[in-house]
């Protein structure tokens, strides 16, 4: 049988065999490159009365801003929904220095290129304490 196989076919079979041997090694090494993620659970915890009505509190390391509006506290992510730069609170609006997107104080887009409102985190209030949970809200 083996004698019937042409040279080209031999080569293509050999290449297939090589790929089959290489694939698992590549796959495992590929997995090696992804580090395990650390789940934090609670990102930020703060006493609720520290944030005045109409005021805000920024947590730079976590890239989170807590805003109180109408008795409710909203936890916005400061990560721009365009491509992920850090937006800055600029008076009544959030402005992004990377490509100029602007967001209103409720997080909605005023000016592109961003097309999606700022992300909000889930918050939990217990005994006058606000916790920001590491999970985004669907708005």
């Amino acid at each position, binding site marked *: 049988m083996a004698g019937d196989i042409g040279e080209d076919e031999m080569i293509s079979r050999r290449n297939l065999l090589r790929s089959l041997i290489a694939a698992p090694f590549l796959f495992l090494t590929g997995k090696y*490159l992804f580090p395990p993620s650390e789940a934090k659970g609670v990102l930020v915890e703060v006493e609720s009365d520290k944030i005045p009505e109409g005021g805000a509190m920024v947590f*730079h390391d976590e890239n989170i801003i807590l805003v109180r509006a109408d008795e409710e506290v909203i936890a916005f992510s400061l990560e721009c929904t365009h*491509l*992920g730069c850090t937006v*800055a609170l600029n008076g009544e609006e959030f402005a992004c220095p*990377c490509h*100029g997107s602007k967001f209103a104080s409720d997080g909605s887009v005023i000016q592109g290129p961003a097309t999606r409102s700022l992300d909000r985190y889930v918050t939990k209030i217990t005994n006058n304490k606000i916790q920001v949970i590491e999970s985004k809200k669907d708005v």
Partner: protein
Amino acid sequence: MFEHFFMHMLPKKVSENGVRFKPTLYLGAMLVMLFMFLSVSGLLLLFYYTPERSQAFASILFLEEKVFLGSFFRSFHRMSSHIFLIVLSAHMLRVIFSGAYKVRTYSWRLGLFIFTLIIFEAYAGYLLPMDQLSWWAAKTGLELMKSLPIGGILESILAPDGIGSRLTLTRYFALHIVVIPMFLIVLVSVHMFAVRRQGLSIEGMKVSSDKLKSRLIILFVVMFMSVIILSIFIGAPLTLEADPTTPPNPAKSAWFLLWLQEIVSWRTWYINFVMLVYITMFFLPELSRRKSGFGWFSFDDRPVWISVLLMVIIILVLTIIAMFFRGADWSFGLYFS
């Protein structure tokens, strides 16, 4: 032995067209030289640089302020890289405009891989000083990458914990110092070998390579002196230590990525047009209906060189807009700084 090795990078006999200036503009030779400048100055920087996020900036500051010739070598490395990118583009344009891409398809496609690696190399190096400029340039560059179809996967391999964090800085360092240069050395060697084996795309009589040798030595001296003088007069910038919480406003990416930043500032998905052009480049030899061999701006290859010329002009204009006409919050106006 060493002299032998370097002198034998050129064969005894070369095509007369390799000796003449007009077919190649000596751009490939310049790239080899700049690659050497970059390797040597990079190795020197390695004696002081610390790839650890709380130490990186301080180690560069120490190099700049305390070390004899420290700021010079840093500037030399940076200047060589700027010139390298410009000469690289020129080399690719000469290959297109002279029709070599159609005759030497293997070198052309291999070259495109080399080009891609070099862009990543230049980008990864940008983060290392960990000052405001580099941090935000790396950040905006990564965001650009994320807007590509496979960007998400690339991001989680390159920057699993975000720009400037421990793993990311280590990975950018490893990529810039070892991984990409290693691949580059191999691929560029294959490229050199292919050029030597197949000869230049323009036929010519074989002549002694002595004349080419002496010209290349002069070119080397001129390049070396020019880069030295430029690096003395134009120092490498070092701003304040990186602060992830306060972006400079506007936050601009590395100069060679500015045109892309300008494009995504209109609509993110416009970047897919750029990807399309990039992929088209790999099939340029098949798409072109060029019949003639070597020849500058041949009449039968007008569609290719006119569209490439147009592309170059567009990239230049976009770069100029992003560089000089974008201010705080990326607003349009006149901003010369």
